[in-house]
């Protein structure tokens, strides 16, 4: 779920971009120094596996996987600007029928690391591969749109008819309905090319054929992955990857606090390394004491939206008045401290559903109050709804592996001020997911969650969390919010091809949903990363809240 997948994203992908930290921090010294070509970049990852099989990956376009695989389209992000979809292997796509049919044209002269040319058939094969049951686990937004409900992948000899490759450069997707964000979908991992006919083996991830600047040199399970230059990658044909270092070494299974200590010490190889995981509040507090280390901490300006989901299908939270009371009852300030020690490190208090850094976002606050909340107003709303004595025995479920205990306890304490009594129930990840995402009849009233869109469109912010189709059955609509009007508006916005126009529609939907108060936005969670002194061009743009790995280089 949001929480868990988010974690997975963090671990599997690492990121990196820029610059501006919280407290108006200047771009760090190292980031300012211009990195040269060459050197060995080290990435210290908590994760024990990195899935280089595009079909199985949920990696963002700008993190680890992007070093090895190119995709049909790419992301361009920079500080102070919303992320844009840009050409990668192909152009950004054209539609002639209002978003139902999309055609992409690949650049000339592209080659895989083994020297064979990359054709539209290889892209098609890659997408088809993601339908095979053996290659599950990746981002699958395309599957429904391509109408592949009964399709079980290309290894059984069948092709997916909705993808056409009239020639080696052209690829056409015929969608089941108009979809304006298809160019964004084409930047998800499944749109990386796999040489046609290859990749049937389960361990393809360990020797995947590269199209990006690096190829997999060695893959030692659980220990490290060494990437070396792909001789067949042509930098002039790639506008999203700088490909500066000669080698990239990803050390796996690193303990986060040890990583933080090592990078703070900044000696030897660690000077050209950065940590792929968030720096924890404890580590941040520690880094404050070390001027050199402090200057090498990069904090995102914004990030995933953390929210309290209210189960809108279960009494008494099926009453919008009651739900609105929660908007005032929570204490966003205590939540900030519980998550990172200070508001500056935790991230701004959130009032909208669309996260910062996304095209078309509008800032508004339907329920203005102090950061500490307004328990009196909450009580009044509850009284209006017929609960003058408050609420008792609400159940708040938690995903145990997300370290949300303190945050949940902060919520629990805040709600208590408005006479809302909550019991916290901590579940293991699978049990939590089964209850929130799969169950038809869940018993929870509240749950804490956070959501980072998988691509920089408000669509990815709103649709997975609030469309009726996303309730249960594996969807992430955990407030179980269902409003035919909103569903219709979502479909309309999704089919809008013009980005600016679509953005406006999404902003309106944002407001419309919050009027019903299915969730209480808490904060836009900031992420902090630390890097060694020789790592240059290490920035975090407005979206996503991860460094852009593709631009990082080593300074001399």
């Amino acid at each position: 779920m949001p929480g868990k997948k988010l974690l997975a994203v963090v671990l599997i992908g690492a990121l990196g971009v820029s610059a501006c930290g919280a407290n108006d921090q200047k771009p760090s010294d190292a980031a300012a120094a211009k990195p040269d070509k060459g050197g060995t970049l080290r990435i210290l990852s908590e994760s024990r596996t990195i899935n280089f099989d595009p079909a199985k990956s949920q990696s963002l376009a700008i993190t680890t996987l992007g070093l090895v695989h190119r995709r049909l389209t790419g992301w361009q992000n920079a500080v102070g600007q919303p992320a844009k979809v840009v050409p990668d292997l192909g152009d950004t796509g054209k539609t002639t029928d209002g978003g139902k049919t999309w055609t992409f044209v690949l650049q000339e002269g592209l080659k895989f690391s083994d020297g064979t040319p990359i054709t539209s058939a290889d892209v098609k094969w890659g997408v088809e591969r993601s339908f095979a049951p053996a290659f599950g686990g990746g981002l699958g937004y395309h599957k429904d749109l391509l109408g592949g409900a009964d399709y079980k992948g290309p290894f059984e000899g069948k092709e997916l008819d909705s993808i056409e490759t009239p020639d080696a450069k052209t690829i056409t997707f015929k969608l089941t309905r108009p979809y304006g964000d298809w160019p964004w979908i084409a930047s998800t991992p499944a749109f990386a090319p796999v040489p046609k006919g290859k990749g049937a083996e389960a361990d393809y991830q360990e020797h995947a054929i590269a199209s990006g600047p690096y190829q997999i040199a060695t893959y030692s399970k659980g220990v490290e992955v060494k990437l070396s230059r792909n001789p067949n990658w042509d930098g002039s044909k790639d506008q999203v990857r700088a490909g500066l270092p000669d080698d990239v070494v990803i050390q796996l299974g690193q303990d986060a606090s040890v990583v933080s200590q090592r990078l703070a010490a900044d000696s030897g190889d660690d000077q050209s390394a950065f940590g792929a995981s968030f720096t924890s509040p404890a580590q941040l507090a520690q880094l404050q004491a070390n001027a050199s280390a402090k200057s090498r901490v990069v904090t995102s300006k914004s990030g995933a939206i953390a929210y309290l989901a209210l189960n809108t299908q279960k009494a008494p939270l099926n009453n919008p008045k009651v739900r609105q009371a929660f908007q005032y009852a929570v204490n966003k300030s205590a939540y900030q401290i519980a998550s990172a020690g200070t508001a500056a490190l935790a991230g701004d208090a959130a009032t909208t559903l669309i996260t910062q850094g996304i095209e078309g976002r509008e800032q508004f606050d339907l329920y203005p109050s102090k950061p500490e909340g307004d328990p009196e107003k909450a009580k009044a709303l509850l009284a209006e709804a017929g609960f003058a004595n408050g609420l008792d025995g609400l159940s708040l479920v938690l995903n145990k592996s997300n370290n949300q205990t303190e945050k949940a306890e902060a919520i629990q304490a805040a709600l208590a001020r408005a006479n809302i009594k909550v019991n916290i129930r901590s579940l293991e990840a699978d049990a939590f997911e089964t209850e929130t995402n799969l169950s038809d009849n869940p018993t929870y009233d509240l749950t804490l969650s956070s959501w980072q869109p998988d691509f920089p469109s408000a669509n990815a912010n709103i649709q997975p969390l609030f469309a009726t189709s996303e309730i249960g059955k594996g969807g992430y609509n955990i407030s179980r919010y269902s409003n035919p009007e909103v569903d219709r508006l979502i479909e309309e916005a999704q089919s809008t091809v013009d980005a600016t126009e679509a953005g406006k529609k999404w902003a309106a939907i944002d407001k419309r949903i919050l009027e019903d108060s299915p969730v209480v936005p808490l904060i836009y969670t900031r992420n902090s990363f630390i890097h060694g002194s020789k790592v240059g061009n290490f920035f975090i743009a407005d979206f996503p809240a991860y460094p852009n790995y593709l631009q990082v280089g080593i300074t001399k």
Partner: protein
Amino acid sequence: MTKHVAARLGGMVLVLLIVAFCTYVVFYLVPSDPALLACGKPCTPENLALAREFMGFDEPWWQQFFTFLGGIFTGRTFGTGATAIHCSAPCFGYSFRQNTDVLELIAGRLPVTFSLAIGAAVLWVGVGVAVGVYAALRKDSWFDRAALAGSVIGVSAPVYLVGLLGILVLGFQLNVVPVGNYTPFAEDPVRWAWGLVLPWCVLAFAHGAHYVKLTRSQMLETMSEDFIRTARAKGVPERTVVGKHALRNVLLPVVTLTGIEFGSLLGGAVITERVFSLPGLGGLLIEAVHSRDLPTLLGCTLFAGFLVVVANAVVDLSYGLLDPRARLT
């Protein structure tokens, strides 16, 4: 003799089967679904069903257990056609969470855990026995008192507490020893040893304490035996009395304890490896528990049970070597 060995082997296999079965049942009851992970995002019920079928989770649970057992002897194949995954015999399961044959996972982590355990055991048995013997010989001296006080502290201080303090003081404050760096022995033996120095010492401090206490009391007991008096009456030098006559008898319980501790190595490794961030079996186990990776868990528990059984057998065997009374006739 042959019959005895056969009975023993049979018993070992039965123990392992029971361990495996209990592990299986307990973890099967845990709400868990590895197919969820392979299902993708968003995870539709159709995708989930496909993933389940592919992994063999659509069978009834008892049948899955027998399929698992069968795999040990015949190997298993998941899925069909070009994308099928083959896990050759002995197949201790295939982890879809980690996309690996479990045996391969264990084999990959084993060197770390063994490096840790064997190095530390050599240290703690050696130092523990030496200190225990010396303390017993100098009973009531300051050395004896210090050894006893130290051993009570060693027994009382949790490994993770001592480990953390060690990392903090020696690793980060004084920068004497490296932290969180495991180098395979084959790659660079010196860096291998240097990287493990701190964990070895910490483990040796905690475990060696038991050996000090055990050796000391055993030594005191042995030194009051009649045969020690006989040896002295023969005119045997005191050094030989201690080093030959007493020590050989003292070693018996030490060997037993070592065997038991070695058998439970995996359980202990869970905490040690977490503290020292070492990529060993304990870490694999705890990751598997947290991610409900049933095949890996089953494989690990079976392996752990196997270690215990083997350790017991080795203890029995070395008993026979050390103590003629225990020899089979």
